[in-house]
């Protein structure tokens, strides 16, 4: 009798196991399809760019969205042709030092890097939003190709850097890739299409941009924590024989003046850079007319060209030459 009574449960358990087993196979097929689609469409994601980069890299550009215009509209290739150097722009929207450190560590696993240009922004050192949360951000993970080494790096970031385990689980399971609503859209920051535009200054645009970038306002404790992340990045680069130059790029005056506690951040950043023996260039006041920007804080083509002509060309070639002599 007992056997008869339990048989429907057993049948159900067997059927459930079979359903789950086949479901796992189908899930893996879906995952493989999503990964393939991702690789076909990948472009701006820094981990994808690392995967397809040349083995020898003269300059790696790191930072948040302010670093990205240096690669817009074919400008990266233009700089490469002009200087004869291999340049790799890994700037990512809203990426703070923690995210950039993970990108650099991943790059250094299989690439020789001579120089790093770190484009620093005060906002990226003030909030978890641009660091721990950015690493676990589904939108970025949806574009990040699968790599077991990166999965391990993310697991370490969960254990040591306060990144959410959800981010690791998302990456390992590929959920965001399968669930990516923009799976067929190009992997590009839509602002790239405005690269040729000139900004019409707007106080409200600046205000809302600052509110967005500093969701919790200036956070001295957070700043110290993320400066420590930057120090770790500098140590990682030094251990791999790469020299780091930290720069602040030009900003429109209205935006620069609205930045909270920027002088204190500059001083702290400079101390960190000098402690690590790396160089520091504050170009934020080089030029600030609106015609050099396509929005409240990003350089347009004219701005990038002027920056390159006046500062970057010399910096890139001099440092690269010094690096070669050094080796």
């Amino acid at each position, binding site marked *: 009798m007992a056997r008869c009574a339990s048989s429907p449960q057993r049948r*159900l358990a067997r059927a459930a196991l079979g359903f789950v087993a086949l479901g796992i196979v*189908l899930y893996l097929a879906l995952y493989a399809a999503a990964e393939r689609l991702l690789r076909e469409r990948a472009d701006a994601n820094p981990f994808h760019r690392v995967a397809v980069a040349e083995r020898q890299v003269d300059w790696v550009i790191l930072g948040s969205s302010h670093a990205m215009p240096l690669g817009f509209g074919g400008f990266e290739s233009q700089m490469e042709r002009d200087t004869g150097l291999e340049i790799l722009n890994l700037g990512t929207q809203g990426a703070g030092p923690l995210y950039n450190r993970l990108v650099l560590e991943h790059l250094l696993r299989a690439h020789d890097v001579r120089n790093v240009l770190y484009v620093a922004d005060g906002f990226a050192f003030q909030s978890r939003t641009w660091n721990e949360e950015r690493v676990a951000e589904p939108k970025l993970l949806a574009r990040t190709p699968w790599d077991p080494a990166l999965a391990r790096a993310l697991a370490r970031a969960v254990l040591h850097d306060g990144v959410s385990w959800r981010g690791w689980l998302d990456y390992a399971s590929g959920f965001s890739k*399968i*669930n990516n*609503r923009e799976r067929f859209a190009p992997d590009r920051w839509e602002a790239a299409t405005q690269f040729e535009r000139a900004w019409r200054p707007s106080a409200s645009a600046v205000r809302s941009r600052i509110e967005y970038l500093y969701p919790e306002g200036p956070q001295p404790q957070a700043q110290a924590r993320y400066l420590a992340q930057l120090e770790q990045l500098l140590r990682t680069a030094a251990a791999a024989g790469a020299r780091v130059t930290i720069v602040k790029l030009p900003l429109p005056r209205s935006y620069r003046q609205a930045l909270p506690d920027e002088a204190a951040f500059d001083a702290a950043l400079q101390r960190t850079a000098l402690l690590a023996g790396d160089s520091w260039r504050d170009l934020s006041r080089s030029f600030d007319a609106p015609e050099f920007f396509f929005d409240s804080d990003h350089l347009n083509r004219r701005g990038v060209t002027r920056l390159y002509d006046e500062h970057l060309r010399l910096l890139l070639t001099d440092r690269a030459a010094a690096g070669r002599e050094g080796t």
Partner: protein
Amino acid sequence: MLFTSLDFFLLLPFALAVFALLPARHRPAWLLLASWAFYGWNQPRQLLWLAGVTLLVFACGAMLERVAAPRWRASWLAFGVGLLVACLAGFKYGAPDARWAAPAGFSFYVFSGVSYLVDAWRRALPPAAGAAATALYLAWFPKILAGPIERAPALLPRLRAALRPTPQQLVLGTQLLAWGLVKKVVIADNLAPLVDRTFGMVAYASPVELLAAVYLFSFQIYCDFSGYTDIAIGVSLLFGLELMENFRRPYLARSVAEFWSERWHISLARWFRDYLYIPLGGSRAGRLRTYCNVMLVFVASGLWHAGLGYGGLGATFLVWGALNGGYRWAGLATQPLWARAAARLPRLAASRGWQLLRIVFTFHLIALAWVFFRARSVHDGWLLLQRIGAAASDLPTLVLRYPWTGAHATALALIVLLLAVEWFDERRPIFERLRAAPAWLRWSAGYATLAMLLVLGRWQAREFIYMQF
């Protein structure tokens, strides 16, 4: 904790596993602990309110059981119900800002508490319900945030019986859970951005966009709310507990009366019927009183919604309630006419075409009322209707010329899928059909559902609309 969150999907199997391992007599205690954990997850302060309501309901319920004198019993009832309603009204209308908003699901467990006390006063509760059973009745986690609003006389005996889910309950529970998720994260949450954008700029959106938003919101709110209910019923079944049906294919209703009394948010409709409409005299106190009572119920429902809605304290919900009350008045007034017409033309009245026409007409009345439910202000709602009305003659051309996007196409496909499922379900329950279907078809349906959830679902923890009420 939201049903659509990762936390939920990690904790639910744990709760089920412990439940399955425990002897039957300890299972209710575990369910109570699990319910508190689910409810207090991330927001433990909410538990204080739940504990307060539970203590109040249990204490007043116990007094109503013990005290024999009718005057004292009425006093205890008035005290308990008055305090519950005052708390609810305080949150709804007295909260100075969002920080003082009611804890999630407060309305729903207050409604359950009121029903418990009234049933205790009517001596309809099972004897010696016990504090733990009362606490579990109020806190049962699948239903705590948005119902169904179960009645104590029906639920308490089920909670105290040995909870042993049958294989059929497990299968049906899983199916309901999956279908509820499809309704919420695939259908409702894919419609939501289109609706939000249009209702956020009523003055600037094109008439076609406005018209589309009216239809889309009708399906969004249905899928959002009934999706929650399906999940709640499905999860309860996994623990061997059956909850009442709360939605029965409402957009297939043939009249507004049928929509509200038999198909939409059935547990709330019955709550209002039993604790407001009938005590007020219902339909047995004369024609005028019937009309007043009907309107009073709808206005009360509007008032309940009005506390914190899309635009904060709003008259929009009152307009929505009054509009539905007006529909019911029109229905009551024309009922004899329709009955006479149906008697004279029985074949026409029974024909499919006529039934379909009634369904379509009822849906449009309901959709029109939803405009005020969703609009940020009465002015916005009125403006939306005016703008659609002004462009009415050009709408066919405008619809053809409108630059429809992929999001619109997805929304349309999802609505067609929903209506197809509902249509088949109306004729014979879809899960019954599945049970009788061959294994390959059942499994294919299961995988298709999961694939939809994975590929099309919006999982970014968008709250259920009714949680705000």
